[in-house]
């Protein structure tokens, strides 16, 4: 589904990713762990098409297509979804409006008709309930005045509505208390499917107690320096990252 090859990325004149390789197949869950400043967020942003990053080398292939050539909205319509580390507050735009506009943009791209208003409401209310969110959130401005946990749940709600193929969770566990973490993790686990893959970018092992990855990769100084199974996360929890950077 996703193939990242020898990716090098600059921010300004500074090289952040220094030849990153990663392959994600359909249905897999990959955790990318690493110390602060290793380039984890840069990887998330480059995958989602955020501006401000200069790809200086390498390639990203998504479902056989060159992902780097697509503007951000096309990536989203093709099924790439980024759950933001810091979801943006948008005054004056209600959640329900954004969800509908986004869903219709994705449907249109797939050659489907606009979603029926009643069907949409039924769907969105069911997904809202599953994430233990109050329906009132739908009619509030996007993320405005939401707590940290509410913002993260809102990201998962959007993900659940858009049913993407490749979900990138950027530090989704940061700022969550244990109850919110459980709800978010349940939301993610409910979305696990044969044709859906996840990349979880996280500093801590905590999230992986709730969402069990198939693969764990350690990103340090712009490269994947070690890969393994779920047990690697536990090893990192115990030893920290220091031993890898020295290696």
């Amino acid at each position, binding site marked *: 589904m996703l193939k990242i090859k020898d990716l090098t990325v600059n921010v300004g004149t500074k090289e952040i990713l220094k030849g990153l390789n990663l392959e994600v197949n359909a249905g897999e869950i990959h955790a990318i762990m690493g110390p602060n400043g290793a380039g984890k967020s840069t990887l998330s942003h480059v995958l989602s098409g955020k501006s401000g990053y200069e790809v200086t080398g390498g390639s990203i292939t998504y479902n056989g297509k060159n992902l780097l050539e697509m503007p951000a*909205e096309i990536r*989203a319509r093709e099924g790439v*979804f980024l759950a933001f580390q810091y979801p943006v507050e948008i005054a004056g735009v209600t959640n329900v409006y*954004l969800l509908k506009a986004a869903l219709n943009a994705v449907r249109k791209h797939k050659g489907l008709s606009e979603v029926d208003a009643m069907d949409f409401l039924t769907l969105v209310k069911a997904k809202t309930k599953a994430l233990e969110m109050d329906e009132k959130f739908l009619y509030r401005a996007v993320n405005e005045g939401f707590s940290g946990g509410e913002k993260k749940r809102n990201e998962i709600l959007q993900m659940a509505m858009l049913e993407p193929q490749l979900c990138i969770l950027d530090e989704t566990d940061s700022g969550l208390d244990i109850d919110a973490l459980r709800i978010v993790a349940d939301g993610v686990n409910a979305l696990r499917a044969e044709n859906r893959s996840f990349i979880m970018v996280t500093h801590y092992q905590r999230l992986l107690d709730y969402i069990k990855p198939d693969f764990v990769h350690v990103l340090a100084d712009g490269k994947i320096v070690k890969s393994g199974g779920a047990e690697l996360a536990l090893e990192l929890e115990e030893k920290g990252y220091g031993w890898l950077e020295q290696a």
Partner: protein
Amino acid sequence: MSISWLDDIRTQAKNQFEKTGFPASNLEDWRYTNVSAIAKKEFSVAKFVEDVDFDAVESGSAFHFVFVDGYFREELSNLPESITICSINDALKNHANLLQSKFNQAIQQSHGFIDFNTANFTDGLFVHIPKNTILEKPLQIIHIATQAAILPTRHVVILEANAKAELIEMFVSPEKYAYLTNSVSEIFVGENADLTLYKVQQEGENAYHFGGTYVQQADNARFTHHNFALGSLLARSDIVSDLETAAECELNGLYLGSKNQHLDNLTRINHLQPNGISREFYKGILNDQAKGVFQGRIVVAENAQKIDSQMNNRNLLLSNEAEIDTKPQLEIYADDVKCAHGVTVGQLDEKSIFYLQSRGIDEETAKHILTFAFANEMVDRVTFEPLKVQLAALLAVRYPMD
């Protein structure tokens, strides 16, 4: 019709106008707006035209008072029976004493447009809401322009104690040629009375517009204004209110300029006595080479203690050539007051645009969604639902989101 008290006032105004003409840009209140193009047009005052190509406005949720080229058209209007709402010419005949006691009394400081209006108004609206009376439906005042001329109208609105009313002023034109609307309103909100006034300025694209609203608020009177400046080539709006004890004044505004439009908004809130409250919130969006002006002044007199006042002006500049001149001013002579003001001028937030793109929405639509949301905050303050719907639809045309 010759009425001596009025003739005297009109002659005086005519002489004054002949001396000064339309305001020059060396006057402080006019420094951002050059109106010399209007004088060069050598407009004359509009003539009455018998045949108009308009159907009577659908009555329903509002009463209607229709002007065509500055002349009241009863046959196109729809008015309540038990409350005095008539043309100013009728009022000169039937409500002469009341009119005389109020005429020119709300205007503390005149200028060329007001003088011209006083000297030349062709017609106008007279509203008298008696004590303890509520106008059951909003009164929509529709100004339709069909001539390349000056359309001067003069209005007097009186709410007696505890009265309540909603008025909607609309300015429209089916024409593309130049004309000048010159509309001056004097409004008297009695003790504990409550007036909401909407203004929707959608003049033709080459039109000039001057609209002045001068308000006297008695003790505990409430005045709420919503000012939507959408049309015209060059428009200037004056809103001035004098507040007695514990009066409340709320001024909301939205100006949307594109191409080479110039939209000037001047407001003055004069707290003359203690315990008053004022809230002012104006927003502007300027595209292309459009220019916006916001001059807001709140004056708190020496004995007007315990005033609570806030003024805000927020602007979106969506092109490198667009311009905003914003000048919020607090002039405070009392020592125990709570007053604040703020101004922002900026562009759309890049992070918000990317957030929407990351959800599948293309960049242009994302920008429209954010711009619509910025403007719609003012439309959301409209409490008369049919008008809110109409304004939201106008925004959706400007900033298409599909």
